[in-house]
Structure formats: C-alpha cells, structure tokens
C-alpha cells in the first residue's frame, strides 16, 4: 500500500494544528528570552564582582601588613644588633682567636710578657 502526497499533507497538517495549540505567544517567548539574557549577564557579572572584592581585600591586607612592618623603624639595624646570648661566646682566651697570629710569634707572648716587653 502506498501513500500519496495529499495524505501525507493531511497528516502533517494535523500535526501542525496540534503544535499551534501549544505554541507560546511571541510576546511570551520574547519576554522570557530577555529575562534569560538578563540573568545570564548577572551569572557572568557575579564571579567578576566576587573576584574584584577578593582582590581588593587581599591588597588591603597586604598593604596593612607592609605598613605594620615599616612601623618597627625604632628597632636596631641588623648590622648593629647583638643577640642577648652573645655573652656566652665571650669565653676566656677568646681574644687570642680574635686576631690573626703573626708568623714566628707565640700566643704565649701575649699571655706572658717577654723581658723586652717588661723592660719598658
């Protein structure tokens, strides 16, 4: 059994009529499209806004920290600073090691003065 074009047209026409019944109006579709577009914009804007706020917050904290470090100007410079436990390194005889020994000289010369030195 074959089906001619008019029968196919009739069937498609029924389908078209059925679709027409549930077709939303143009105004509805257009309005929903605009609303969706607006919400899409807000979806894209929201992460950007959150990112910007986070950046500002981090920058503020960073700058505040930097300022708190610069406040300690009254503290001694690292070159002049001495540790409180430095005295423990001040052992007896440490002055012998403080300078380079001369060739031919003895460390004892410093500890026990020679007659030539004593003669002065």
């Amino acid at each position, binding site marked *: *059994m*074959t*089906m001619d*074009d008019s029968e*196919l*047209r009739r*069937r*498609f026409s*029924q*389908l*078209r009529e*059925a*679709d*027409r019944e*549930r*077709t*939303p*109006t*143009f105004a509805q*579709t*257009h309005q*929903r*499209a*605009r609303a*969706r*577009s607006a919400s899409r914009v807000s979806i894209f804007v929201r992460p950007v806004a959150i990112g910007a706020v986070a950046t500002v917050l981090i920058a503020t904290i960073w700058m505040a920290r930097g300022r708190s470090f610069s406040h300690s100007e009254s503290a001694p410079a690292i070159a002049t600073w001495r540790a409180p436990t430095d005295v423990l390194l001040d052992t007896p005889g440490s002055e012998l090691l403080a300078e380079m020994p001369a060739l031919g000289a003895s460390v004892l010369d410093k500890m026990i003065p020679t007659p030539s030195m004593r003669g002065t």
Partner: protein
Amino acid sequence: MESALAPLILEAANAEERAMDDIELRLQLERVHADCFGWAMACCGRDSDDAEEVLQTVYLKVLDGRARYDGRSSFRTWLFGVIRHTAASERRKAWLRRLLLERKADNLKPESTVSPDVELDRDSRRDGLHRALADLAARQREVLQLVFYHELTVEEAATVMGISTGSARTHYARGKARLATLLADSQAL
C-alpha cells in the same frame, strides 16, 4: 555651524533607522513565530521546552544583531536555518553537560497545562506519524517536515539545511517512500 550639526543629524537619522529596523524585525519575527515554533519542535525531537529555549536564543541573536538577514533567501527560510543551527549547537552543549554530569533537574521543568487524558488522546492520534518520523534518517525527516509541514519548496528546504538541491531531492524522495511504508505498516498493525 552647519558642519558642527551635520554629525548630530546623521547620528539621529541612524538611530531612527536602527529603531525602525528593530520594530520591523520584531514584526517579521512575530509574523512567522508559530511556524518557527513548529520547526524548532522538529529540530528538538518534539520537546516543546527545548524548542522554546532554542527559539529564545534565536530571537536574541536576531534582535541583538548577532545573526543578520542578508536577503539572499526569504526571511523565513533564513530564520529556519538559524533555528536549525542553534538547535544543533544547543544539542551539542546538552551532550557536553550530560558528559560532565550536569543533568538538568527534571522537576524544574514547568508542568503541561493540558490534562494528561487530553494529551494521551492527542498523542495516540499523532503517534503513528511521530513514530514513523522518528524512524527516518535526520536529513529525510528534516526535508519532509520542511516540505509537508511548513510548505517550503525542496529548493528552500535545501537552503535551510545547508545542502545542495540535488541532495535535498534525494533525501526527499527516499524519505517520502520510507515514510509512506512506515505509515502503511503502522496502519496494517
């Protein structure tokens, strides 16, 4: 003085022209809206929610100037092409979403306003054609929908589908024969 006013006058004229174009575009869209919805339904596997979503995207594209009518074919034929392209793109996106396990929650879909009994009755009447169309190859289904449902010529259908007229004719002939067989079989059962 005149030279200072000239750009302002030109700008005002352009703005007026744009507003007129916008109104004209909206009127044209409104005129073919029902037809577009039917075509969007065909492009979205007859899912009315998906069809409306596609149509919304298309209207935004057209009204925002992202899709421009170049006058090479009729406005309706051109718009059908945009709908077809947009539906395909939305299908790809949906496929990707499913792949990433981001399924759209079914309960978010608005319920049909038609009672289930009425819907069932209508469905049973159209079921034969629906099923037969679903069994056709995509190109055959598209060309038959464009010719029989939207009453386009095969040449216009070819433009919408972005294929040659010869190819559209082949799909049309094969699709029609197959559809007739499928419908005859469903009647015989």
